């Protein structure tokens, strides 16, 4: 007898609800309809996906509306749009990574990594295209420039950023100065990178005469972009150091600066290091400030204090915009994409290292 009363109740619960396969049917239908519509404008993948998605959203919502009612239909529509937004956001990411891999890998040779563009002229590129000889010239000078400029930017920003964060967290009592620093650090994160470049160019132009362009000027420009990132991340990390540690140290009679350097900073060092690594990853790909501060070089230059320098981003920019040979652009394009691949690998490695540092050297909180 129990079964007899249960069965109608269960159908009562699922009454007015779509069977779970409905949406799959709608999806299949919209794929077919989308293909038909796409065939009208000349069949290819993009219109097909676009039409199918539109039909699916409309039809799926309508089906829900008919079977389950208007409120459920609105809910379904919102779900479709939110899922759709995520898929759309993935497209450029996948496309960029695919493009860089596809076009960059052929050019990524030993020769590319360890020769500069010194002496590589348009005539050589023309010859490459006409006779099929291997692409000469590479990004060695740009890789050196990138590493040098980023290193100097790090050397400038880390002490300043670290100390400023220590001031904000350990010394200030939330006064007007501290609030001003916090506010302007936030504002500084929003400075357009090209303005930072112009600032460094203007500063050194005033000090050493107009047109002073060296790797060091670029490093100063990058520091303007890097310092706020270092300050913010260090601040966050110092904030989560438990106060008990500080107080235990004071109770032992340890001075404040020793407490900070021996207790507080070592506790937070993993977070600080990963924040610094992320800051490096952010500035290593900057192009605009380098463009206006370091000029452009095609030969190897180890000296950040003299002569123009090239970095990977400016290398990519100039190879695309002003190919070495205006009539045969293929070798330049290939070099640009290979450089882009190297740059992306560097940035991704830095991001990975930051995550690893944060995970491996995190202070053990459990007892």
């Amino acid at each position: 007898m129990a079964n007899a009363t249960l069965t109608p109740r269960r159908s009562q619960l699922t009454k007015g609800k779509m069977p779970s396969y409905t949406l799959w049917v709608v999806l299949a239908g919209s794929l077919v309809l989308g293909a038909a519509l796409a065939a009208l404008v000349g069949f290819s993948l993009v219109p097909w996906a676009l039409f199918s998605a539109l039909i699916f959203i409309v039809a799926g919502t309508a089906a829900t509306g008919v079977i389950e009612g208007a409120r459920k239909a609105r809910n379904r529509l919102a779900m479709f749009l939110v899922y759709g937004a995520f898929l759309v956001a993935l497209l450029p990411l996948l496309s960029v990574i695919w493009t860089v891999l596809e076009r960059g890998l052929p050019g990524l040779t030993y020769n590319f990594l360890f020769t500069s563009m010194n002496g590589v002229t348009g005539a050589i590129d023309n010859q490459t295209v006409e006779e099929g000889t291997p692409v000469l010239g590479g990004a060695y000078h740009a890789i050196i420039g990138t590493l040098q400029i980023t290193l100097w930017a790090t050397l400038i920003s880390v002490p300043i950023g670290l100390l400023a964060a220590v001031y904000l967290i350990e010394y200030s009592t939330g006064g007007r100065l501290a609030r001003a620093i916090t506010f302007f650090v936030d504002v500084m994160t929003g400075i357009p990178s090209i303005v930072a470049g112009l600032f460094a160019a203007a500063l050194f132009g005033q000090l050493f005469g107009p047109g002073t362009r060296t790797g060091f000027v670029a490093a100063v420009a990058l520091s303007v972009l890097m310092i706020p990132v270092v300050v913010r991340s260090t601040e966050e990390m110092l904030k989560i150091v438990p106060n008990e540690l500080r107080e235990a140290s004071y109770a032992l009679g340890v001075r404040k600066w020793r407490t900070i350097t021996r207790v507080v900073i070592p506790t937070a060092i993993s977070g600080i290091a990963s924040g610094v690594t992320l800051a490096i990853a952010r500035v290593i790909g900057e192009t605009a400030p380098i463009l206006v501060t370091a000029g452009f070089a095609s030969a190897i230059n180890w000296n950040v204090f003299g002569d123009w320098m090239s970095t990977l981003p400016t290398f990519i920019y100039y190879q695309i915009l002003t190919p070495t040979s205006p009539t045969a652009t293929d070798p330049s394009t290939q070099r640009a994409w290979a450089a882009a691949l190297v740059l992306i690998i560097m940035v991704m490695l830095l991001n990975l290292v930051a995550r690893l540092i944060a995970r491996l050297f995190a202070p053990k909180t459990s007892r």
Partner: protein
Amino acid sequence: MSTNAVKRTGGAGQSGDKIFSGASLLAGCLILAALFSVAVFLIIEALPVLGEDPAEITGGQGFFSYIFPIVIGTIIAAAIALLIATPLGIGVALFISHYAPRRFAQGLGYVIDLLAAIPSVVYGAWGYAVLAPQLALAYAWLAENAGWVPLFEGPASQTGRTILTAGIVLAVMVLPIITSLSREIFLQTPKLHEEAALAMGATRWEMISMAVLPFARPGIISAAMLGLGRALGETMAVALVLSGGGLTASLITSGNQTIAAEIALNFPEAYGLRLAELIAAGLVLFVITLAVNVIARWIISRHKEFSGAN
């Protein structure tokens, strides 16, 4: 944390304390000085523009008529970027915070953050080499079928290197900013509000529109403003993608220019007055982005006080 007891002991190490606190104070002040000197040096270098004969300025009609079209171009590009990225960013943030399965949510967040890790020049190259040729086909269709709308007036650019393409690339670049900030705010929504709405029989969307979105509105606005600041100042994507020119209303022909791209394209060859012009343009950009950022930060800080209660 009271430190009075420590100070009184005196003796060796006291100078260490003084040096360290002095150094950290100095570093803090240096940051203020840096921002201040950004403004000062830009003004000094840009000053020659003001006293100059208007005919000498590029365009021959004074600085204002030189800067006006590129300010408008900058605003157009940033507006396109925001119009695309804000709804998309909110959608993605909602997906990660409220729709995706819990187990994958954090990983998906990382994936979107990867978008922020790709250098801008790579986006520029991608827009130039991949996106623009694709969009050129769509622009040709638009010019043919919707040409009566001033925004889509032909002739469509053959290469696709237009302000609309640049705006789309910018949208991709500001998307991770808007997404990560909105996601933070969405996750802060008081759980009790959400559960109360669900308990009353609200659907998921009704819960989001009644509990999450009203709570997050100031956060979304400020996220969009920060994205706007980024889009206004972004250089390389526009410099590579846009084939610039005079101000036009049409989004699908080559034309328009943004401040940042104008500087990047012309600075390497500039000297003398032209240099001062470009730096003055940079100063204008600085002031605009500073205003946008200050407003955004102000909204965030005001919001913090409100949300401190939960």
